[in-house]
């Protein structure tokens, strides 16, 4: 990876062009534009809403009337806004734009059909569709059972559980930053960093042999890198299956305890009021999910910097 600094010697635009124009990758190119845009847009709306909230909190009289979008209500405005034409003309415009987009895309790009499938010949790199590339990237850091089954299940169940654990009554139906800092931060971490970033790495950075290629580096199939990984117990010098399991259990136990403690302390300090409103189940769920989320960057660091393969090795699953 480090020789990636060499890219400044010769930046391969052609390679970038080829990656971007691969039909499978075009959604990701769009995603790279759309995600920042919508994030920015949402945060802009949140900021304006916060400004409005501040205004309304300062002026109780104004707070009694409705507001329209991010502005307090003015007298000459109609209180009722009709669906036709006001909503529908926006929707119509949106429909036209989507039509144009779809038409242009379908005429310009053919379906990405390749040669007839040959079971004896595997492509290199062999990549999943983009919506699974985040998980495929996670496979680098975790055991397949964890990265492919446990984590996705936890993600889905966690997403389902969040509304039940979310005890913050504010911020429903409008964007706001001030009233929902914790939730938004956690969301950004979970979505932008742990999901989108992983997907983008999987699409643009991972090349032949799943090796790391910085943008501008040619995807050289002949490249050889040193990437011999070892288990945690082997690093500590404790060989054997028993040690592998034991060291792992201890390490994970330690991690869990330490992380839970830190989370608790931080949560109490900044969100003590929310803590008061949560029951044990909700708090416990939140802890578990947060611990699992944080384990990902921790494991990434261990893998990339220290070449650690598995922390815990048992005959049934590894972590």
């Amino acid at each position: 990876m480090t020789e990636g600094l060499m890219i400044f010697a010769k930046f391969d635009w052609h390679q970038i062009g080829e990656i971007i124009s691969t039909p499978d990758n075009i959604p990701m190119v769009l995603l790279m534009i759309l995600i920042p845009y919508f994030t920015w847009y949402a945060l802009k709306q949140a900021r304006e809403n916060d400004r409005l909230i501040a205004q309304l909190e300062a002026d109780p009289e104004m707070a009694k009337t409705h507001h329209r979008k991010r502005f307090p209500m003015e007298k000459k405005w109609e209180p009722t806004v009709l669906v036709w034409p006001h909503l529908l003309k926006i929707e119509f415009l949106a429909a036209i734009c989507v039509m144009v987009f779809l038409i242009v895309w379908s005429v310009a790009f053919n379906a990405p059909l390749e040669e007839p499938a040959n079971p004896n010949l595997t492509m290199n790199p062999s990549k999943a569709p983009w919506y699974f590339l985040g998980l495929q990237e996670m496979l680098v850091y975790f055991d397949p059972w964890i990265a492919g089954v446990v984590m996705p299940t936890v993600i889905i169940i966690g997403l389902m559980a969040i509304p039940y654990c979310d005890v913050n009554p504010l911020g429903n139906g409008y964007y706001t930053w001030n009233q929902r800092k914790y939730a938004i931060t956690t969301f950004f971490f979970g979505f932008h960093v742990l999901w989108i970033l992983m997907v983008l790495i999987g699409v643009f950075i991972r090349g032949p042999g799943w090796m790391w290629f910085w943008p501008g580096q040619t995807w050289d199939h002949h490249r050889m890198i040193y990437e011999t990984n070892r288990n945690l117990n082997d690093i500590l010098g404790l060989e054997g299956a028993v040690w592998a399991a034991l060291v792992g259990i201890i390490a994970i136990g330690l991690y869990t305890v330490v992380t839970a403690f830190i989370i608790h302390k931080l949560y109490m300090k900044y969100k003590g009021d929310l803590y008061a409103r949560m029951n044990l189940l909700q708090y416990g769920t939140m802890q578990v999910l947060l611990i699992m989320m944080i384990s990902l960057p921790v494991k990434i660091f261990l893998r990339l910097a220290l070449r650690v393969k598995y922390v815990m090795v048992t005959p049934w699953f590894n972590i």
Partner: protein
Amino acid sequence: MKDPITDRSLSWPLAIASALLLLSTAWVLYDEIWGARPWKGYQKTFRKVFVERLENFKQQQVAKEQDIRQEKSFLEMEEARKAAMEDAKKSLAEVQVQMDLINRKNAALTPAMQDARGRLGEFTYQLEKARKGKKEGEAKALEAKIEKIKAKKYKVAMPALEKGKTETVEMVFDEIAAEFSSLKNLRGDLQRQQAALNGPAREIQSKMASYLQARIHGLQPHQIDARITELKEKFRVGIQDYQIHVEDVGLVDRCQVCHLGAMEKVATTQKDLFDAGLKTSKEVWGDPSTYSKEKSALRRALVSHPRPDLLKVHDPEKFGCSPCHGGNGIATTSVVRGHGWHKYWLYPLFEMENAEAGCQQCHTGSLHLEGATTLNVGKEIFSERGCWGCHRMEGFDQEVDDLKLIATRQGVLTRERKELLKSQAFDEGMLDDEDDLYTDEQLDEAQKRLDQVYPYKLSEMETEEIELAKRRSSLHAQRKRVGPNLKDLRAKVKPGWLAHWIDSPHVFRPGTKMPSFRLDPDQVQSISAFLWEHAIDPERAGYLAALQKEAGKHLNQKAADAVRGKNLFETRGCMACHSMGEGDSSQGSDFAANLSRVGEKIQFPFLMRWIQNPRKRLVPSVPESKGRDRFHRDLYPDGDPYDAETDGVLLTTNATVMPQFRLPWDEVRDIAGYLMTQRGGGGSFEEVPPWLKAEGEAKEKLLADGQKWVSHFGCAGCHEIGGFETEGRIGTELTKEGSKPLDRLDFGLFTHQAKKLAFSTHDWIEPIHKDEGNWYTHKGFFVRKLGWVEQDEEGEDKLVYGPDFFDQGKERSREEKLRMPNFRLSKNENTAVTTFLLGSVDSQFPPRFYHNPEGRAKAIEEGWWIIKKYNCQGCHAVGVSDKPSLGELPWFDGRSAERTAPPTLVGEGSRVYSDWLSGFLRDPSMATGAHENRNGIRPYLAVRMPSFHFSEEEVGKLVRFFEAMSSQPTPYIKKENVPLSRKELALMRKAFTDKEGPCQKCHVGDGMIAPNFVHTPARLKPSWIRRWLLDPSQLSPGTSMPSGLFGTQAPWKYPPLMGYGGDHVDLFVRYLRQYDEGEAKALEKME
């Protein structure tokens, strides 16, 4: 402030979005109608241009037709036709009058007839129904009604001969019906008359039509008109009319949607299209004389398919286009898609120079395919240069595979026999009971037991084993190696020469078959040492002593007459395979080695032994022995005979195709002496090389290294080497190389560059030809892997690309480097071999596509392999247009009988009997005793047909080949000769002893310079003798046998023969067919 929702006008965004929508919709329509369908434009252009083309062509044909119509014979025919028509005119008119009358009568009768018949029909039907329903009353009533109708009288106005006049007649139904049918018969008669009258004129007309058709090449004007009309009126722009759908394969080929001229019957070239108006804009606005081929892609696409004879054999409706040409037949959206020139279509269109690659996938078995010249050259190179020594290819070196199969089958049989015997509690020792262990009763008992259950099985197995053993010895005799037997090295070459050769063969002998291996000096030394060590020790083999015994006093280099040797070399036929002289002054054939420097390298005694009999091994060899060739005394110290069953196959023949010339020892000595004087390079390799001087540990190391390298480079794939007899091939199998996935071809560090990507990670590798397109294809790989030799600015030979090209830039140890040696092919040879490899694919098509010849075609196909293997075409013409190398030499000018070239083999099958031919091929000397100096049919020739020692299989295939080439019936039935009467015999004998007679000048007596007649009864087919006697120069152009011996202009007139009333030629044929030794003696007595 404005209301952020209700006061927001979205007019501008809506307007822009709507405009975009409109534009994109327009784009969709454009793309769908034209963009993705470029062929619409091509078709419209084609229609316009091709009509013009046809019009131009029609002018030509019309002019031609006019000329033909002015020819005398045509005009005569026209006159005759007119006369015939005149003759018939009057009678035709009469017949026509009668015909008119009949028609008028018919018309008059018809209403009444129809009426009556209709009614009758209805009542008859009802009657049948009533009868069936057993309604008797109704039936009776109906019968009555029918009677009434039949009795009804109709009034008919029958016309008379004069027009307009009629005669009213009353007729009942039966009469009307009778009149009707008699009219019909009359009409038939009249029509026959008409036909007969028109006959002569019609006949002449059809003769005129076929006269025209035979003389006009190409379509006649009326046929062209038909096509023009078709194009003008029925042409549809679309795909349906041009698509080929081969249902059983699921193949859809739409090539013709753009290549519209492909199947047109009027051959159309680019020039024709240019003249018809298909010009590029530059040609239109610029100088029209700037026409040159390839400037217009559309012109290239619209030409007609060359070789319409090929299309007749491979009907596109049954084969499609893409099986032969490659490409993506079903795509129509662009040229790149249709031709499959993008990375996802695995079978791209072959380029023009490789177009014959498509032939190979169905015609795998043939070495000589009519019309596929590049492919044939490629396969010949593959065969002759010995690619199959390292790379297995199906069909080449079949003997090795067949031997393996036989070995397997023998193993199976042995195992089965053991099991069989065991199952019947039959001890194998009982079969022959050598040690007398069993009593007679026991043996009988056991035999009975066996016979009860398996009466014939054992003997079946034994028979099969005998057959297999026969086949195995045939295969061993047939099997040839690419390079010489290296076990002979010590006896054959000077040690000083060996290292020079192994290092760079092409320096010593430019154009040699042996490729250069890119070896380091130490590798060369160790390989030389190893090969020398593992060659047969001549002292131990005692070969010199044996040679001395055979050759006697002739084994003496000083006594050799080099001048006579040179003459012998040039006349005995050596130069049909070998050449002498360097570069442009080289004469002879390049099938075998050029001998200009042979004296520098070879040892005299071995050369003598070799020339006398190349097939005789120095020492008999057992392949399984792995180097310990079976000197008899090694195996059998007690002197027991060799036992093939226990010791394996014993090979006594060398695996070379060089035949034995049956030369006497003095001639052998002189030729050898001459060759020893050929020291073109002036080099001397007499010094003892360092590797030979090494001893002790150094020598051990040399030998160990040598073994490693000989094994590494696969020398045993082409040469026989002691210890490596059963080694396999080191290269990949190439049978399906053309279908190998591209990812599996090793482009080395050139992958990026090959795909024409902007930057390569290894830019320090020099690309050789910078302006090439994408070469990440099979063709790109093969062409560069094979490499070729170019002349650089100084005229020196430079190797371009080559087998080690894909190693460039890689850090590799010697053991890891690519091993394939440089073959130094020319550019054309490279193209030919590439074509062959591109065609070697795993074919996707059903068996009906493949060429599986039977009978005659198969015999021809198999025969060509043998013809090419032994280079028969070096001396003889086998195909009609062959020019054998020997005939080109100055000596063979035919000025005397001695200087005649070998006979042509065109029509050999129709000339000789097959049993004679097989006997001749087995032993061309046609001697039963000692073979030397007994030289077959034409002993007066200087050139000699050598003994090839064919295997039985090869003899059979060759005989069948010649029979098939001459389309002889199988089986050929010899016709009995009609014996001559006594008078005829006396007549013929007198004719053959007449002083002026032409036959005896050459064919009879001492000093014959033509084939002896005594061979005729067993040898020549009577029909051929007849054709020969009548016109020899047609059967064998340039023969000394005079033509015109028979016929009124014949120069020789022997009076008694002139009085003979029967067929003279037939008389001669019958006489010759019974001309045996007795007849020859009788003639001698008469003289």
